[in-house]
């Protein structure tokens, strides 16, 4: 089954006149009868940070594994740096750096030893090796830890080491599979800043997968929303948000739940969509947040009812995800924790 992403009409060309570092054409991955990736198309321009956003099991990691030659493509084509992953896997491997989901650096080795081993695996000449290691350690702010055993590092530092390891051979294209999973909020922000710096200083093309909307929003030039192996939307974060009816979200909870609030809320001016959530909470998409809020309060008072809570926010990628898939990304992520066993090739 082919899927065509609803490419959001761009308000401007975000990447003018840039050639494609990655081109994926109708790519499919099957495990027996199960189709993990169902004919996905997209392009990533040079120097771009491109995000694959989706819940666990959506097919993000399968996509990234096909692009990094880790698993064979069932059908379709993936070109990375102009090389076909199926026909020229070694050419692809030479120009990419990959950060897997798990922390796989050797704990018994020092930070520097881990980098030396990988530099040798990429056949980095001895003269360049020292220079590259010093540079990447500086870039990930681990210079003073170069002699420390990896097992003594914190989770955030180990993730930075993984990133340094992926950069030690100066790749052009960088793949990161959920780079901040398992990190605390402070370490996560540090990784984001580091990736932004790397993009600027090294002109790297980055493709990352994530199920954190904030991560995708803050890091990515463009985002592809993936669900059940298909690309459901593609665009810049701004474009994606603008593509959702209503520019604001009003989240409201009434003290009494028995009224037909959904119908009443839909009748308010400027309201484009109302979603009923758990425990009597409603998410109201509106093109005019302040106006809708005032009218909502007025309506509640007129009915002699009371509000338990009320908040107004701009449209988020979560709203985008809900709009395109009909489900909340956060819920899917939580549910996925209990999926046993995982689907073959699931991320």
């Amino acid at each position: 089954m082919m899927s065509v992403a609803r490419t959001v009409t761009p308000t401007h060309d975000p990447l003018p006149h840039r050639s494609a570092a990655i081109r994926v054409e109708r790519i499919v991955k099957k495990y027996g009868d199960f189709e993990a990736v169902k004919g996905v198309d997209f392009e990533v321009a040079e120097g771009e940070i491109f995000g694959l956003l989706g819940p666990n099991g959506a097919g993000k990691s399968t996509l990234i594994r096909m692009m990094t030659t880790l698993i064979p493509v069932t059908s379709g084509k993936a070109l990375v740096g102009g090389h076909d992953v199926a026909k020229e896997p070694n050419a692809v491997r030479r120009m990419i750096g990959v950060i897997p989901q798990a922390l796989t650096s050797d704990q018994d080795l020092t930070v520097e030893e881990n980098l030396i081993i990988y530099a040798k695996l990429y056949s980095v000449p001895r003269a360049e090796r020292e220079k590259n290691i010093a540079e990447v350690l500086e870039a990930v702010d681990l210079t003073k830890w170069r002699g420390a055993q990896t097992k003594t590092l914190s989770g955030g530092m180990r993730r930075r080491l993984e990133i340094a390891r992926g950069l030690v051979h100066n790749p052009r294209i960088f793949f990161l599979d959920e780079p901040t999973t398992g990190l605390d909020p402070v370490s996560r922000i540090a990784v984001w800043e580091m990736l932004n710096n790397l993009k600027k200083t090294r002109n790297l093309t980055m493709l990352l997968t994530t199920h954190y909307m904030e991560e995708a929003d803050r890091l990515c030039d463009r985002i592809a929303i993936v669900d059940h192996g298909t690309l459901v939307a593609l665009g810049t974060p701004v474009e994606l948000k603008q593509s959702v009816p209503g520019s604001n979200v009003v989240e409201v909870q009434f003290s009494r739940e028995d009224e037909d609030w959904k119908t009443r809320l839909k009748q308010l001016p400027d309201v484009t969509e109302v979603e009923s959530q758990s425990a009597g909470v409603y998410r109201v998409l509106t093109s005019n947040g302040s106006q809708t809020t005032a009218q909502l309060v007025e309506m509640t008072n007129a009915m002699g009812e009371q509000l338990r809570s009320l908040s107004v926010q701009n449209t988020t990628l979560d709203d985008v995800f809900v709009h395109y898939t009909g489900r909340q990304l956060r819920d899917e992520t939580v549910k996925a924790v209990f999926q046993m066993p995982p689907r073959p090739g699931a991320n």
Partner: protein
Amino acid sequence: MNRFLAIVEREMRKFFRSPVLMIMSMMLPIVQLIILGHAYGGHIQGAKVAVVDHDGGPQAVKVREAFDAVAANIATFKTINYENETQAKEDVRTGKVDAAIIIPAQYSRRVYAKDAPRIGLLVDNSDQVMSGSIESEMQSLVNALNQPVIEDRVVKNIALQIVELYPYVEYMKYLLSGSVALAMYISVMIGGGMLYIDDKARGVHEGYLVTPISKLELVMGLNVAGAIKAVLSGISITVIGSLMAGLGVIFRPGADLNLFLLILGTSLAFNGMMFLMMVRVDDPLVPRAMFGVLNTLLFFPSGAISPVSAFPKWLQAIALVDPFSYSVHGLKAILLKDGGFVAIRGDLIFLFAFGIGTLLLATPLFKRTL
């Protein structure tokens, strides 16, 4: 091609950084060598034998003097006098004594009359080793008593003259070859099999697979590293075990070269076998579950504990294809007999052919993708 050296370097850095593997691989063989070497190596000593003397005559006294001589010299058993034959039999049955000797009434008279004199020996044959030793000692004692006081001028009986090629080989020395092979097997099982699957499960191999390393380089790297670890274990236990068992052959450079070749061949064979078995395994529990089974299946039929010729045919068939057998045979040929290269040539051919053959089989099975 040099990328395989990066894999070797990584494995060796980890190996030396954490000496647990080396210690673990040597601990069991050394403990086995000490315990089994001493447990099975010696003669039975100090067994308790009840003596019921219903005769009390001069020939009975002669027998009892012979018992005292045994107790004072070889000390296989010591005697305890019993008055009651029934009590003696009961004590053998309940294990208070290991055997009972009954000297019947009229024994001395029968000896003088040459009227088929007999001494009764009651043994607890539930313990074959103990009963066998007492029977053997008693048989020697009776043979000595049967010697005529004045020898014939011409000896008419056939005598077997035994010439032993080597000094007496204690069981500990006999066991050492098996212990060396076992140390290498454990090193390969832990350092090769278990770590390989654990690394796979942790995603370390995923890291290798995204680099331009080829399938052959990866297989070579993993196996060369595994072979080096096994060789180090083999050399260590050969030196330690030889010193413990009192084998001086390790101080002869020619023998050392032969030992090194055997250790190298053994590590190659074990690595190849392990890699072939683990090449498609992903579950870390599998090598752990296989450890004991393989140990029993390969170590015991190899001739490390007792000779292969004593096994039934089906067990001998296992020994025929078991690299342990050739390793143990070769190591014994050098450690116990200093037999030279000629004595181990066949073992070396098998071990190297087995190692290379299993690696050639495993390489196409190795997946370059996840």
